[in-house]
């Protein structure tokens, strides 16, 4: 202790003029705050400042013809509402998020149920399952890009080989084909993460409860509906919310696979913001759209944080 109090006195007395004010605990707190400074500086520089800057730019006209931004109020937001192509991007985003999240949850849960069974080679299969997750997402995109490639793709080679199609099809050049490709790619590399969540949940499921249900004559579907899913409900909620947030934010594999095309078939909000900013150089519009994009993520993020805090 560097500081003490004299019994019976009203105020603590410092034993030495060099003793630290507030005692050791207070000193540790001050040093602790100092250690927070780098993180705070990084947060301010990398997240807070760009966000506030984007917020400000959203209310300006800032493009190639106006390198110095001009305040235009809500004009960018009005322009967004008046542009059918951008409204279409919201619809495309909803379709993509819905399909990718649902597909990953269903397949991730199914795969977790399989890997939760006892069979020879289970450990190896669990490890192999994680491969898509550890691959860089652009590598994943190129792998699937080659699979779907119209001239050299494995899919076309197989289908032409068995006579299912007369000549190679340009899968990434049709609206449905392109959306299917980007959804499949996202599902493929998201399954390991979701499967891990579900598998962790399944590990805590009471085995005796399942055995008892079996004795009572419950089939597989009844087990899933009445025992497994209720048990996994908290995990399921977290996984769905994380899936929605992740898919709303997703950019790289879509950009690498289709660039948002053909035309705008896979132009989700992230791609639309990129195109506005870096293809058309309209930073005002891109920032306004970015804000609306953040607004679509906020409810899911709020729900997730509330769930976390409640859990804590």
């Amino acid at each position: 202790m560097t500081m003490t109090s004299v019994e019976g006195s009203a105020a603590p007395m410092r034993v030495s003029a060099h003793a630290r004010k507030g005692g050791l605990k207070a000193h540790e707190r001050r040093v602790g705050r100092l250690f927070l400074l780098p993180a705070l500086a990084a947060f301010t520089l990398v997240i807070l400042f760009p966000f506030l800057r984007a917020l400000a730019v959203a209310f300006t006209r800032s493009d190639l013809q106006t390198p110095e931004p001009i305040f235009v109020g809500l004009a960018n937001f009005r322009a967004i509402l008046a542009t059918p192509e951008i409204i279409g991007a919201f619809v495309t985003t909803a379709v993509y998020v819905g399909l990718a999240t649902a597909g990953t949850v269903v397949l991730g849960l199914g795969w977790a149920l399989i890997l939760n069974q006892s069979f020879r080679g289970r450990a190896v299969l669990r490890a192999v399952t994680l491969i898509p997750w550890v691959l860089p997402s652009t590598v994943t995109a190129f792998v699937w890009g080659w699979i779907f490639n119209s001239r050299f793709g494995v899919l076309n080679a197989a289908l032409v080989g068995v006579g299912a199609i007369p000549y190679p099809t340009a899968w990434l050049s049709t609206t449905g084909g392109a959306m299917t490709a980007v959804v499949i790619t996202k599902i493929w590399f998201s399954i390991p993460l979701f499967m891990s969540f579900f598998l962790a949940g399944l590990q805590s499921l009471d085995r005796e409860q399942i055995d008892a249900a079996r004795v009572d004559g419950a089939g597989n579907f009844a087990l899933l509906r009445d025992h497994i899913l209720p048990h996994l409900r908290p995990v399921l909620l977290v996984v769905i919310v994380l899936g929605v947030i992740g898919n709303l934010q997703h950019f790289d594999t879509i950009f690498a696979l289709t660039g948002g095309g053909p035309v705008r078939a896979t132009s989700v909000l992230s791609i639309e913001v990129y195109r506005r900013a870096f293809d058309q150089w309209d930073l005002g519009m891109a920032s306004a759209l970015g804000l609306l994009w953040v607004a679509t993520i906020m409810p899911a993020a709020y729900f997730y944080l509330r769930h976390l805090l409640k859990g804590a």
Partner: protein
Amino acid sequence: MVDLTRRDFGGLMAAGAAALAATPAFAQGSNISFMSFSFAEDPNKPLVQKVLDDFKAQSGISVEAVGSAWGDVQKNLLLRQRSKTLPTTAQLSERWLPALATLPEIVDLDQAIGRAKLEAAMDPAVLAMGQVGGKTLAIPLITGSIGMIANKEVLDKAGVGVPKTLAEFRAALVAIRDKVPNSVPFAAVTKNPSAIPLDFMIMVWTHGGRIIDESGKVLINSDAGRAAMAFMAGLMKDRLIAPELDRPDSRRLFAQGASGFYIDAPQARTFARSFSGKGEAADAFVLPIPTPVLKAGDTPRSIQWGHLVCAFKGPGMEGPDSAGVKWLNYLLSDAVQGGFAPALSALPVTKSAQKLPVVQNDPFFKAWAQATGVPLTNEIGIWSNGPELSSILSEEVQAALLGQKTSDAAVASMQSRMEASMAKRG
């Protein structure tokens, strides 16, 4: 817990900052920088490096090359402008200059180098590529045109000659499709929004139409515009062109004998040499041809093309004797123009280099000039909202090619969207 005083903490921070400042990233490196897309292209990187090395040997000034993919140069320049880290000089495609001319940092080269000197070095038509609003904002580096190239070996395999009209062209494509397995008869660009406009523009001109005139009036929704779109959509329907093709794909298909025709700049020869793996032996099959015309007697169409180098205000561009200006002058010297430009299969921009034997005696340049005739100015690229116009055009062309819209609907939509963009431009 470690007993760390504020003084200790401050000392640590200062030491960290000093260590950071001592790393190479913070060290003073080259005198000036040059952002170049040729430097990012494998076949052309050694050519750029040689120019840099020769300049350093001659002047003692080192130029740091910053490679940037062709499609990313404008984006990188915009980002660097926002973060105030623009390079000293940058290589541009000629059609990007009107958009970049709005950047306040771009240097007026009439002042930096001298208008009289530039006019003495280059023909007015060549110098005009680097001018916007009467000011020279970039020096032309190489010049030429964008026209059609045929693969002689593929034509021979298909048993067809060089087509002169669109009808003959279509017939040749059908023959290639049927006789050369797994080929894309005409490797037109159908993917990249920056490159689709060039192929479509030539088709519109060939059909006698315009996209936008000199006054900014959008003219695409015409009989000629609709006919051009229908012609392209017909090629796609009959598998004579292919989806998902970007210019680099076209170059590879052409060089590897999987395509009969494509549209490119004279650099096509350099790419064919590299991508075929045959080196100069590839020259035998690279055949510049006049773009097929609608009816005999029409003028074959091609687009004016070139690379420019612009400069940005800042260290290295302080005055006529600065390192940046010396670098720009060096790029116009016979050493560069007579070496770099022909090696890139492009024409030099200066009058003196155009008279050099290496240029005069190259049969490819003669064949190219005869085939492409007098090129026309890019109708999209000359506008400051060119990037948006390109996106609109590409989306509508793709929609028609992929059957999402009829040709007429796509052209009508292109007209209205381009008119809105031009109106917003003011």
